[in-house]
């Protein structure tokens, strides 16, 4: 199966969606996106970090360095109230877009 690059803008949506289930570190987010999309969405792990910073900057998520059970220093990302709101907005917007795109792309 060919890799599907995630379009910009949607990545943030995916991150927010992932964090809905609880705080997670960067690697965990990447893995979760890959797993839940049955490996269709191949997130280039590196592209995750600018997106995380953008979300942090806009106040949708916060981050904190935490010690894991295995004694590793990890930066954990957590959804904020604002992030939750943004997620619902983005989600409905996305749904609308998908419907619209489907109509546009449907051969006449």
């Amino acid at each position, binding site marked *: 199966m060919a890799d599907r690059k995630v379009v910009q803008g949607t990545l943030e949506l995916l991150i927010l969606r992932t964090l809905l289930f609880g705080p997670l570190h960067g690697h965990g987010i990447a893995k979760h996106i890959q797993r839940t999309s049955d490996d269709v969405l191949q997130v280039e792990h*590196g592209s995750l970090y*600018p997106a995380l910073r953008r979300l942090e900057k806009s106040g949708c998520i916060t981050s904190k360095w935490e010690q894991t059970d295995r004694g590793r220093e990890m930066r954990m990302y957590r959804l904020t109230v604002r992030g939750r709101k943004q997620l619902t907005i983005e989600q409905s917007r996305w749904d609308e877009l998908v419907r*619209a795109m489907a109509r546009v792309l449907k051969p006449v």
Partner: protein
Amino acid sequence: MKKDRDEELEHEIRTHLDLEAEERVANGMSETDARYAARRAFGNVMRTKEDVRAVWTRRWLDEIVQDVRYALRTLRKSPGFTTVAVLTLALGIGANTAIFSVVNAAILQPLGYPQPEQLRFLTTRSADGEQGEVSAPEYFELTELNQSFSVVGAFVVGEVNLWARDRPRRATRARVNAELLEALAVPPERGRWFRREETRFGGPAVAILSHELWRSTLAAREDMVGQSIEIDGVRHEVVGIMPPGFDLMDKRVELWLPLQLDPAVRQYRSSHFLSVLGRLKNGVAPEQAEEELASLVASWGERVGVSGHVFTPGGHVMQMEPVLDEIVGSARRAFWVLQAAVGLVLLIACANLANLLVARAEVRRREVAVRTAIGAGRRRLLAQFVAEGLVLSVLGGAVGVVIAWTGVRALTVTYPESIPRVADITIDPAVLGFTLLVSVMTGVVFGLAPLGHLPEGVAGPLLNDRTRGTTATRPWVRRALVAGEVALAVVLVTGAGLMVRTVLNLMTVDAGFERSRLVTFGVALPAATYPTFDQRVQLYRRLIDRFGAMPGIDGVSTVSGLPPQREHNGFGTDTEDYTPPPEVADSVDYYQTVTSGYFETMGIPIVRGRTFQRTDRTGAPVAVVNEAFVRTFWKGIKPIGRRVRPRFGDQTPWVTVIGVAKDVKQAGVDQATGTEVYFLLDQLPRIFPTIPGPQLGDWSGWGHGSMHIMLRSALPAATLQPAIADAVREADPSLPIIRLRNMDDVFRDSVRRPRMLMQLFAGFAGLALLLAAIGTYGVLSYMVTQHRHEIGIRMALGAERAIVLRTVIGHGLKLTCVGLVAGLAAAFVLTRLMETLLFEVRPNDPATLAAVAALITAVAATASLVPAVCATRVDPIVALRDE
């Protein structure tokens, strides 16, 4: 701070890679392969770091660069649109910059003297509000009485014959006293100023040159200072050269001579001929000085111990104003009006561009929708529209500067006499700053216009709209823009129309004589080479005889003051059977000296009595007066045979009036004609036994050192030029021929400022009309495209082409009507600002407004015609199949 962030990121990425590798090792990969795979899954680490850093710091900068790049790319993709947009803007911005250059140089820039705000120009004002010069006793008394000025100087501007490079030349000269140079406080470029003792009666023949005269006429000789030059037949020693651009009251002075007032002029209290300019003492506020002057005026008579023609509050007073105000004068309003007009042109250009961009935005709705979908926020979209607007306006501004530069050159070449301080006009940093400001503002304004036209930045509705195939979301935006353009165009065209009417009125004013087929030039006889009155008369007579015998010349005469505009030279005059009411000066406004045959040559009708005849040369003193004289002094009294006496010394005899001539314009065609008395040149020694010339010097015009030769001929000045040059050279090779012109050109020159205003206004109005027409055309063709389907159906159902045509044109005219009404209302208010610039036409002149309405409607109909014809060509089958 940044280092910490970098370290954190570094740590985070390292952990990420470790985890990924561990996971892969757990899945059975070798340690090396796992590490490699982890890196591959991560992508370019360096780029990630850079991207993250961009989020922290360079985001907005990057975005701008990105937006500008994107804007350039999209604009390059539609060169037609870009060219139209940039050219429209360039014209608007260029015209604005050019006019602003003039406003800046002429009105806003301070004068080029040290502390110019300290300089005050002093004038007198008569009881009837007429502003005038200062008489010699008034000047001397002011210098003695005042406490506010550190120095007060006097000057008289005139012309001289200059002998340079073996040729005679006329040059503008200012006679100034040393005090004036001290007041202006600009040191000479070479040499020195006049010393105070050099500008007293009996002082030496010295001269200071302007830099420009030294460079052009005197070939910039290095050893000029100390050399002598011949001025009016007298050798003058050059003592200094002034720096480039140095001038006085915008008179374009080429030569500075010492003002050496004869002490005797202190008795001519009513002979106002001095221009007076003072420099306020440091720390003295202008208001303080004005207060002091007012209090001086209140007690002037007491202080100087005189009565009769002395300053009195509310009557004849002395007043002061900033020098710049005097220089710019009436031009100020003219140029602000022009600036406003050209600003309206730019507004129209912006409206047009906004319209183009709205149209484009509609075409690009899908693009916008897709960009919104992939994460472009409303803010980014906005930024992109503004970036596009800015790129367009900066490009337009750049081309505009080129246009402005050309425009300024054209203005200064075309209207050198109509623009104050024309030499100072440049496109300087202030002007460039103005252009930049205008460009950026226009960019933002019309860049935002299409965004306002878009619905809230949600992707869905946009895409939906398209699929439903509805028409424009808010069509009224474009229509309002076009109606607005029409309204602005109406204002401009009305202004232009009023100026056209003004110039037409000015050009057709009855100046009192037949101006066509009339050629004129001046000769000036210096006192040094023509010391006696008889010698001067002899030379004029020789020229008259010579021209009279010349083929192609039907009449020749001479006159001291050239109509329709000449210097005011009146003074107190006794008039028989007339007692002036108190507080009213009994001055005749204009004295005119002519040779016999003047009225015949000029074609001035004699309404009563007779003109001068050859026998009058030796007969008793006689005079001809004008109708205004009779109206003013002898209302209801038979003028012929009555007498007048100029109050010029005790020996002046009474002069009998023999005729009344029709009024001839003297103060300009737009001014009321003043009272005028004509004397015969040959009789002057008998009318003025003591000719005031020697006392007053050459500025009074009473020595008749200069006369205008009038030639009635079917041949134009250019054709007559060689013969005239020969005749004058033969009479005296040292005499320059002064301003040889057709009388028609003299008239054209006398209304040059209204003409300039008219031409520029007409140009701007034309531009405005063109832009408004393009706007109307654009909206209608868009409408026709949008409604092709509907038009197709109608035509399929049998609608006639004429109906379709009428519908589309009707739409255009509806828009125009809205604009026309709004525009006429605005014009009604705005043209009032032009009132002082108009002549014999009121700002809300119904005929002009009607003509404007007709013109605008015609232009709109024409602009609508093309889309209308397009609409009739819609093939119903094609239109329907399209859908």
